[in-house]
């Protein structure tokens, strides 16, 4: 049978968005190393329920690293140990018997806590609504092969499009900046020929939406890139900076978007 761990958890508990939160300590007993991190929390929650308490609330859904719903900052690192993984893909074999694990929500003013470890990330949706799309009305499309797209361009667009919108970049950034998230979408669409028509308008309005939601600014530390479960490169931020500068100049001296 699988080895079992005895752990101490320091978990952020906050009854609701308005209430004060604090760190509480729990024992996580007999956790199989083969369990996933969220299954460890399931086990702890079963114990809390049995003892008549309220289980720890946390967001999760697909549990296979693609939906972007799970969050958690584990020992100060969004999505915990391991490169290129989400919290739901972390397994307990990454920890040692006797470890103390700190579990906190993704912290940012733009991501208010709803309860315990759950945060509200609708700010991301609002940023996408500001311009994270190509205005292609259903039915109006030309044949899919009408516009060839060089493979390197398609691949680079894909690398950016791999973003799952989890918000780890914001959680990791000491300024709670959303630049990596915004850049990934701006560049995914901006690189493709289909997205060029709205490129300038898109970068301006998405960056402004980002600012309006109270995210911080980028100080080029690349913490976002380090924790991104899809390993999206900060060079997309570089490109967005350039695109933003160009679009700003165009807007100032040439045309309104």
């Amino acid at each position, binding site marked *: 049978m699988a080895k079992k761990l005895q752990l101490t958890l320091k978990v952020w508990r906050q009854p609701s968005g308005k209430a004060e939160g604090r760190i509480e300590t729990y024992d996580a007993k007999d956790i199989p190393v083969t369990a*996933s991190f969220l299954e460890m929390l399931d086990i702890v929650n079963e114990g809390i329920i049995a003892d008549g308490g309220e289980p720890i609330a946390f967001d999760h859904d697909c549990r296979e690293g693609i939906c972007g719903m799970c969050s958690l900052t584990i020992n100060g690192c969004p999505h915990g140990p391991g490169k290129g993984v989400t919290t739901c893909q972390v397994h307990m074999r990454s920890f040692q018997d006797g470890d103390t694990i700190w579990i906190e929500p993704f912290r940012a003013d733009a991501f208010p806590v709803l309860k315990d470890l759950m945060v509200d990330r609708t700010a991301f949706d609002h940023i996408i609504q500001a311009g994270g799309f190509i205005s292609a009305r259903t039915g109006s499309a030309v044949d*899919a092969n009408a516009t060839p797209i060089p493979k390197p361009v398609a691949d680079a667009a894909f690398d950016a499009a791999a973003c799952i919108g989890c918000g780890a970049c914001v959680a990791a950034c000491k300024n709670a900046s959303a630049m990596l998230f915004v850049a990934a979408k701006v560049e995914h669409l901006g690189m493709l020929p289909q997205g060029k028509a709205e490129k300038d308008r898109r970068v301006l309005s998405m960056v402004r939406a980002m600012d309006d939601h109270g995210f911080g600014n980028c100080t080029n530390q690349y913490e976002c890139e380090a924790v991104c479960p899809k390993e999206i490169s900060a060079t997309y931020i570089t490109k967005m900076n350039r695109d933003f500068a160009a679009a700003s100049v165009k807007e100032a001296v040439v045309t309104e978007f």
Partner: protein
Amino acid sequence: MVSDISKDMPDSKIPSGPIAEKWTKHKMDSRLINPNNKRKYTVLVVGSGLAGASAAATLSELGYKVKCFCYQDSPRRAHSIAAQGGINAAKNYQNDGDSVYRLFYDTVKGGDFRSREANVHRLAECSTEIIDQCVAQGVPFAREYGGLLANRSFGGAQVSRTFYARGQTGQQLLIGAYSALSKQIAAGGVEMYPRTEMLDLVLVDGHAKGIVVRDMVTGRVHSFAGDTVLLATGGYGNVFYLSTNAMGCNVTAAYRAHKRGAYFANPCYTQIHPTCIPVSGAYQSKLTLMSESLRNDGRVWVPKKAGETRRPRDIPEDERDYYLERKYPSFGNLAPRDISSRGAKEVCDEGRGVGDTGLGVYLDFAAAIDRDGEDAIRERYGNLFQMYEQITGENAYQTPMRIFPAVHYTMGGLWVDYNLMSNIPGLHVLGEANFSDHGANRLGASALMQGLADGYFVIPCTIANYLAGETPGTVTTEHEAFKKVEEEVSQRIHQFLNINGNRSVDSFHRELGLMVWDKCGMARDREGLTEALKKIPELREEFWKNVRVPGDNNNVNQELEKAGRVADFLEFAELLCYDARAREESCGGHFRTEYQTEEGEAMRDDENYAYVSAWEHEGVGKEPTLHKENLEFENVKLAVRSYK
């Protein structure tokens, strides 16, 4: 109670005429609504996966007022996102003889002749437009160096018609639909309600005119009225507890509609995927699928001896049983999904399963590594091996992978006519939530195609056939029907919170899942199903007496959310078993051990069972009434498959 074939079945509204002209004809015959009038109609869309998001976006583009609901924190997270393989389309870009007709034919045949020809043909027709639409939205499909779209052959298809975006096709398509939805939200055409769960359907004079929802942040129960309701709420795979579905996937919306009168069709058609990572312990919450392509190079085996304890590499060749190669010499390890899944179950039932739980078989790459070298294997499957190692901690280059089948997709769903409308007027059902296109078995890369076809192209046309006959905005939430249903929903929540029993919701879900998997999983028989039909109500009774739902309803309460879903699964499981028991044949994802050939092949009974089973709810704990829609095959000849 079994009613006579088609007698009291609602009209399926399949257009007359040759198969290839039905959809065109139907579009021409469909009613139209003046653009200025469209904005007066409110459409409620429940679910924001491929079907829901694409429908909400497109209907809003047409001018309808749309309200869209999802239980996740953002519409971008619906479980369509997890589809890996690809999306089929009859583009014939590869010049390999593909056509709309061939895609239609393959899909009907793949569905084991239990789907409606007309629906499937329409699906095949729409498939090409889907690709155009997605590319226009910026979906980064795989491309060749010349810049044109790449294709691959998928799921045993003889032609290369699958479009893909690495292993994340579902994600990219969903983000495309989500971006279209976002555009319409920004334009004011769609009001989006995330973290909002539909808990019931409201009928006014027999028409679906609204829904009751719970705000999952504040706990508030309230309602929305509309001129029509669209359910795009996915499948019911989580009735098995362990499946490849997301944790939140549930049957509640569809089942509540069923309780309000909507027929549930073919629930027993559930698809099992053979190459999932096995369960490692009782705490397991979900199963992860690995691409079936692994079977191209991996050899499936178990030890010959039951209770084997040696490590796999220490078991000599002559003590291994390569059972797929043995039983199906010509297809071997590439035998179809259901056959290889059942093969695994059989050897595990014999006690020859591997791993701690005994529920697993080896998928061994040693021979392929010897033949092609480790680098070649890494090139082909590197990401899958990595994923496997992440989850199991084992290096599959050195030791064989362990795999086991898991529930993956459900073909059954609410019954709909050609307009995607259920037997409740005004209730439309899209995507995996309906039963319509995949018959008894879904082909690989067809789920995404169906979700998007329904949302982008079918419903925008057919919805007017219902709406044009309705005066817009006649019903508001002030109507007494809303108050009544709201009251029922609140009452139920109150009940959950006040049982104060001793068992967690999950413990009931696990027990139910195990039971359903055992009796109504990969292989079923009358005896087992009858037993399940006895045990499920007992478990349900215990649930209502002994479940513990902590907390209150003024806040986020995840246990309460789960309780509602599990309560519905506890009723739905019974329906699933009734259907499985009533269908005395084996077809597609439904295998009855009594109905198999001597070689263990599924034995269909076209004479007696070439129909859609549409179940009518008669009350909790009461046997539902079966209605039958006869399936006519005018274009595809019924044939028996053979993989010997």
